[in-house]
């Protein structure tokens, strides 16, 4: 039983990471009905942004707490700026194009970003050991052992998610976002600058992805140009599982996916080899019985 709770906690850590990335997918989908397949790469570039700052800019005498804060901020900013840039250059010109066009563009952007890091980052095809800025050690919570890093990952993810929720449901900009998601034309008539709202959505997704990039580096160093692919795939699955377009759903989907993977690792013979299969079996089952995902709303047909 103790082992069950141990795996549940490990699943939560992994799930928190998936959820942070999934939020970016789901928000963008909610606003512009685009599966932003470049989002995994935005996460990856964020991690590289943080790494670059630490490796090339920060003096090594800096206390690790401050360094971590700076790395986190720079990673978030890198991802946010990149997301805004990609929206401006790749997606906005296709705003009124058939839906497949931005989708294929997203794949193009994804490949371009991955290859840019591989080719142009110094020695980019080799994994980079991410700076370990958090004290190493474990805590025992009633038989469940978690590292300090694990606790930090869960806490930071929760704080960010709650902040996002407050922003979307309490602020004026958040209200404009929800209005744009419901009906962009009417929102525009009511004086909402929808282009600005769309950029803000991409930026928010980027901020979370950048933070996730640093967290990934902390729990799973080294980082390389390929980490965005798997993380993006898992987060996309989490977003669909939870009901794409739904913010709470993305978080729920992320945690569900993380926990399923952890439990499969433990309780299925040779589980590590099969955990991804189990994650996708759960996705298929949910989609069979709830085609809109766990918390998905019925999807509006848009002109």
């Amino acid at each position, binding site marked *: 039983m103790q082992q069950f709770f141990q795996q549940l906690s490990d699943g939560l*850590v992994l799930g928190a990471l998936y959820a942070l990335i999934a939020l970016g997918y789901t928000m963008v989908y909610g606003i512009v009905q685009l599966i932003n397949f470049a989002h995994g790469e935005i996460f990856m570039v964020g991690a590289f942004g943080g790494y670059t700052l630490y490796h090339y800019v920060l003096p090594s005498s800096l206390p690790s707490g401050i360094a971590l804060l700076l790395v986190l901020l720079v990673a978030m900013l890198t991802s946010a700026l990149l997301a805004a840039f990609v929206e401006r250059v790749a997606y906005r010109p296709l705003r009124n194009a058939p839906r497949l066009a931005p989708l294929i563009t997203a794949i193009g952007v994804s490949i371009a970003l991955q290859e840019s890091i591989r080719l142009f980052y110094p020695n980019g095809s080799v994994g980079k*050991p991410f700076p370990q800025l958090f004290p190493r050690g474990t805590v025992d919570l009633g038989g469940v*052992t978690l590292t300090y890093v694990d606790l930090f990952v869960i806490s930071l993810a929760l704080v960010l998610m709650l902040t996002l929720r407050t922003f979307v449901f309490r602020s004026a900009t958040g209200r404009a976002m929800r209005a744009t998601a419901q009906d962009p034309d009417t929102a525009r008539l009511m004086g909402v600058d929808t282009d600005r709202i769309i950029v803000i959505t991409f930026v928010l997704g980027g901020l979370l992805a950048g933070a996730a990039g640093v967290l990934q580096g902390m729990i799973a160093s080294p980082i390389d140009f390929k980490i965005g692919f798997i993380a993006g795939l898992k987060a996309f699955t989490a977003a669909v599982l939870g009901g794409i377009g739904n913010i709470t759903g993305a978080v729920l989907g992320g945690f569900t996916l993380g926990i399923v993977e952890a439990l499969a690792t433990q309780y299925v013979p040779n589980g*590590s*080899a099969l955990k991804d299969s189990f994650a996708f079996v759960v996705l298929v089952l949910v989609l069979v019985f709830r085609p809109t995902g766990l918390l998905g709303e019925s999807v509006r047909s848009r002109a």
Partner: protein
Amino acid sequence: MRSLRLVRYTAPLLIGALALSACGSKKESGAGASSDKVVKIGMIAPLTGSLSALGLGMKNSADLAINQANKNGTVKGWKIQFDPQDDQEDPNTGGAAASKLASDNQVAAVIGTLQSSIALQAAPQLNKQSIVLISPANTNPSLTQGQTYLTTKKRPFASYFRVATTDLIQGAFAADYAASTLKAKKVYLVNDKLVYGQGLCQAFGTEFKKKGGTVVGTDFVTKDQKEFGSLVSKVKAAKPDLVFYGGQFPEGAPFAKQLSDGGVKVPFMGGDGLVDKSFVATLGTPTANSYATNVGAAVEDLPSAATYVSDYKAAGYKDAFSAYGPNTYDAAQVLIAALAKVLPGKTTIDDSVRAEIVQAVQATQLDGATGKVSFDEFGDTTNKVITMYKVESGEFKKKETGTFAG
């Protein structure tokens, strides 16, 4: 429902397309403008991607040997051109590189591969054309002794050779060290599901059980996996006193680190796939309790390797020669010696010439950088030395050199 349907139909397509993004190719052309006839030595190795540090060390070492041979005119009347191909750590790409080299009628021999799984794709194609494939790094026994190597040994590829010894020796040597020196009784086996990792784990487990140890669990990691939290918890619950890992360092390094961070402080041990400086860099400080075996003796212990090391430095290559550099240099020497024996007087590289090259390689007796090089009836090296290393103060420190006698 339109948009949701779109998601469902396009997702598999997109995933497939993204997987393709890993592909790409890089060409390099060798020199060779002279009145001499041209013979090519190919190479199949990972020149890009996470294992490229090893692959580039191989490429440079072969390049060094070939340049020296051309300068000295070792193969009379012929100029050797080097034709390295990138396998991108992918068996299909490696197989395609092999068929490309096999269809080139100037290619006399190929050096490679790094990974046993890729050799399994490349060797059959080159063997069909009687082109020698000589590996500095493959250790899976099935490549020379057939799929049924545990019961009956049968050589599958007459033109396949290697200067690295097999995992039957490497795994057993590691098991012996774990049981006798580290006094381990319970081992947890983890591998990466690839040919090399599985074979190494099997060889380790078999010998470890013979020594009276028990295997308390087995599990797997997936290529490119970086997060091992739940696997660490699973291993921890089984309370092993050694974790043995069969696989390469890109997955092995974060796994070792997360085991140590998660409180599994018992020794972590693996094979030659872990021996790279980025394994040590990923572990960070304080270093985990990690061991790895590598094929051959330590370079600093070999007086014969001193010239190679200084020549490599003098040539000014950007990348370090890494774990398989000396072996690759010797593999290239073997090929050059065979070409020097066979080619003078010949006009083209046809099937009979290639068959003669295979025979010449089989009969090799050479003093290489790693010691005496010769091959047994399976194409395996007769040099069966293994060295055990431990990660200490930021580098692999030699612990014990020897071989496994049974």
